[in-house]
C-alpha cells in the first residue's frame, strides 16, 4: 500500500533541517521506543516458541537418527535404523490402524450429530442459554475423568452397557478384549466431550445465514428437510470443513482416552486400542528408547502434515468460487 504513494513520505527526516539542534536524548529514546517496542511485545511468544517448539522439533530430528543413551544423555549416530525399526514393527502398523479406526468412529458420527443438534438449537427455542450451556457441559470435564467413567460403563463383566444389552436379550460385548468394540468405546468418550462443542461452532455459522434465504425457500415450497439440505448445509460448508480439520488434527493425536481405558495403559494385551501417540509414549517412557520415540514423533508429524495438505486441497476445491458464509478463521488484515 505504502509503495504506491512514495512522494507523500518524502518530507520526513533523513537529514534534519539546517539550524535545528540535533535530537535530544529524550527524543532519541522516544524513537527507539517506537521502533523497538513491537519486537519487544512479540518477543515473549517467540522466546517460548524457540524453547519449547522450534528447539524440540530440530532436536527430535537429531535424536531420531541416534541410539540415545539415557544415562549419559548423549547418543551415537545410527542413520535410519530407528525409522527402519519403527516401520517394520507390527505394533506401529497396528497402532496406525487403531488411530484411524478410532478417528473415523469418533469424527463421522460426531459431525452428523453436532450438525443435527446445531440445527435444533438454531430454531427459535425457549431458554436458549440453558440449552446451549447444557450441550457444552461435557467439554469442561477432563478427558482422563471421562475415560474413567466410560471405561466403567463399558466394563466387560458388570458394565452398565452390557447389562442393558443383556436386558434386551443381546449377549455381552467384550469391550476390553475385541478390537472394534474397544474402538467404539474410546470413540464414544471423544464424542461425549466434543459433540456439543462442535454443535456450538456450527450453530454460530447457522445463525449467520440470512433469514430471508429460508423465507425465499419456503415461498418456493421447500419443506423443513429441503430447507436444511438446500440452504443450511451449503451455507455452513466452510465452517463444517474447519470443524473437520480441527477434529482430524486432534483425532490423530489421541492419547488420554486410550491410556486410561484400562489400568495397564499400554493399549491392550494385543495392542487392540493402542494409538500412535500411545505407541510413542510406550517407546519413550515404557522401553526408554528415546531415539525410536523421536522417530515415531517425526512419522506422526509427517502423517499430520500430509492430512493437513489433503484437507487444504479438499477445502480449496469446496470453497473455490463460492460466496458462502464467512469462514471461521478470516485471513489476517494488516494495514
Amino acid at each position, binding site marked *: 500500500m505504502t509503495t504506491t504513494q512514495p512522494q507523500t513520505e518524502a518530507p520526513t527526516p533523513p537529514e534534519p533541517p539546517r539550524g535545528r539542534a540535533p535530537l535530544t536524548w529524550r527524543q532519541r529514546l522516544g524513537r527507539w521506543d517506537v521502533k523497538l517496542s*513491537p519486537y519487544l511485545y512479540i518477543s515473549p511468544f517467540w522466546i517460548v516458541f524457540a524453547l519449547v517448539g522450534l528447539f524440540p522439533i530440530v532436536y527430535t530430528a537429531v535424536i531420531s537418527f541416534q541410539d540415545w543413551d539415557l544415562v549419559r*544423555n548423549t547418543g551415537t549416530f545410527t542413520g535410519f535404523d530407528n525409522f527402519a525399526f519403527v516401520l517394520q514393527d507390527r505394533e506401529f502398523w497396528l497402532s496406525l490402524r487403531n488411530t484411524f479406526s478410532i478417528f473415523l468412529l469418533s469424527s463421522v458420527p460426531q459431525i452428523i450429530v453436532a450438525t443435527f443438534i446445531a440445527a435444533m438449537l438454531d430454531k427459535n427455542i425457549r431458554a436458549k442459554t440453558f440449552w446451549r450451556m447444557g450441550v457444552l457441559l461435557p467439554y469442561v470435564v477432563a478427558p482422563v*475423568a471421562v475415560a474413567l467413567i466410560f471405561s466403567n460403563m463399558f466394563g466387560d463383566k458388570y458394565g452398565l452397557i452390557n447389562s442393558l444389552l443383556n436386558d434386551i436379550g443381546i449377549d455381552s460385548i467384550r469391550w476390553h478384549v475385541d478390537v472394534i468394540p474397544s474402538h467404539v468405546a474410546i470413540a464414544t468418550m471423544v464424542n*461425549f466431550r466434543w459433540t456439543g462443542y462442535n454443535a456450538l461452532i456450527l450453530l454460530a455459522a447457522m445463525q449467520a445465514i440470512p433469514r*430471508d434465504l429460508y423465507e425465499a425457500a419456503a415461498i418456493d415450497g421447500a419443506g423443513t428437510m429441503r430447507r436444511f439440505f438446500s440452504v443450511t448445509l451449503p451455507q455452513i460448508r466452510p465452517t463444517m470443513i*474447519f470443524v473437520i480439520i480441527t477434529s482430524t488434527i486432534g483425532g490423530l493425536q489421541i492419547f488420554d482416552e486410550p491410556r486410561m481405558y484400562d489400568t495397564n495403559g499400554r493399549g491392550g494385551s494385543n495392542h487392540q486400542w493402542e494409538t500412535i501417540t500411545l505407541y510413542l509414549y510406550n517407546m519413550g517412557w515404557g522401553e526408554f528408547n528415546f531415539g525410536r520415540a523421536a522417530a515415531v514423533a517425526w512419522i506422526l508429524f509427517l502423517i499430520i502434515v500430509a492430512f493437513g495438505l489433503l484437507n487444504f486441497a479438499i477445502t480449496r476445491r469446496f470453497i473455490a468460487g463460492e460466496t458462502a458464509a464467512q469462514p471461521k478463521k*478470516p485471513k*489476517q488484515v494488516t494495514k
Partner: protein
Amino acid sequence: MTAIANPLKRKKAGASAVATMRPGWFVYASLAVFLIASVFPFYWSFLIASGDRYTINDPNMSWWPGGNFLANAATVIDNPAVNFWKALSNSIIVSTTMAVSTVVLSTLAGYAFAKLRFKGSNALLIGVVATMAVPVQLGVVPLYILMQKFGWTGSIGAVIIPGLVTAFGVFWMTQYISQSLPTELIEAARVDGCSMIRTFWHVGLPAARPAAAMLFLFTFVTSWNNFMWPYIVLDSTNPTLPVSLSILQANYFVDYSLVLAGVLLATVPLLLLFMFAGRQLVSGIMAGAVKG
C-alpha cells in the same frame, strides 16, 4: 398470516414466518435426549461413587444414590499415594499461571501485530499461525531431555513453562484487537505523550478485555485438563489432578466406588467454573473460538 401478526416480536430486520415460528415437540425432545446423554454419565458415576465396592457388581443396583459418597471421598483424599490436596493446589497454580501469562503475553503480541507497524510483521504473524499446526507430541522427547538437563523434571515449572503463551492466543487476540480497537485512539494517546507501553496499558488492554476474558477461560480449562505432558514430566509425589487420577486408577482397580468418587472430586472445581462462566464459554466458542 403470521408474518403480519408478528413483525414486532423480533428485532431483526427481515424476520419472517419461518424464523419466528415456535418449534414443535420434536426439537425439544431431541435436545432433551442429547442433554440427558450429556449429564447421565455424571449421575452414573455418582451412583457408583455413593455405594460401596460391591455396588457395581450388584445386578439389582438401585437407581437412587447410596449414602457413602462422603466416606468414599474421604478415603480418596486421605490416601497418601493419591496426594489429593497437593494435586488440587498444583492444578490451581498451574492453570492460573498459564491462563494469566497466556492472556498477558498474547494480548501484548496481538496488540503489536494488529496495531503497530514494524518490519516483518506479516511474515512473523504467518509464522505464529504456522506454529499452531505443530503437534505437541512432536517435541516431547527433547523437551523431556531438556527439562532433565535443567533438573526441572518433577516440578510444576516444567508443566507451566511450555504453556506460558500459545500461538492460538496470539492469533485470537490479533484478530480481536484489529477489529475492535480504533487506531485513532492509539494515535490520540501517542499525541498526548504516552509512551508505547503506557498506550498499550491504557488503550490497548482495556479494549481487549472481552476477548482476554474468554482466552483466560479457555486456557484455564485446557491446562486444567491437560494430561500427557504432566504425566510424562511429573511423578506421583507432585502430581496435577489428571495425573493423580491415573494413580488412583492404578491403586484401586477393584474398587470403582473409590475411583469414581475421585473422578467426581476432581471434576467439581471445573463444574463450579462452568456454573459461573459457562455463558462466557458458550459465547466464546460461538464468536469463533477454535480448539485450544
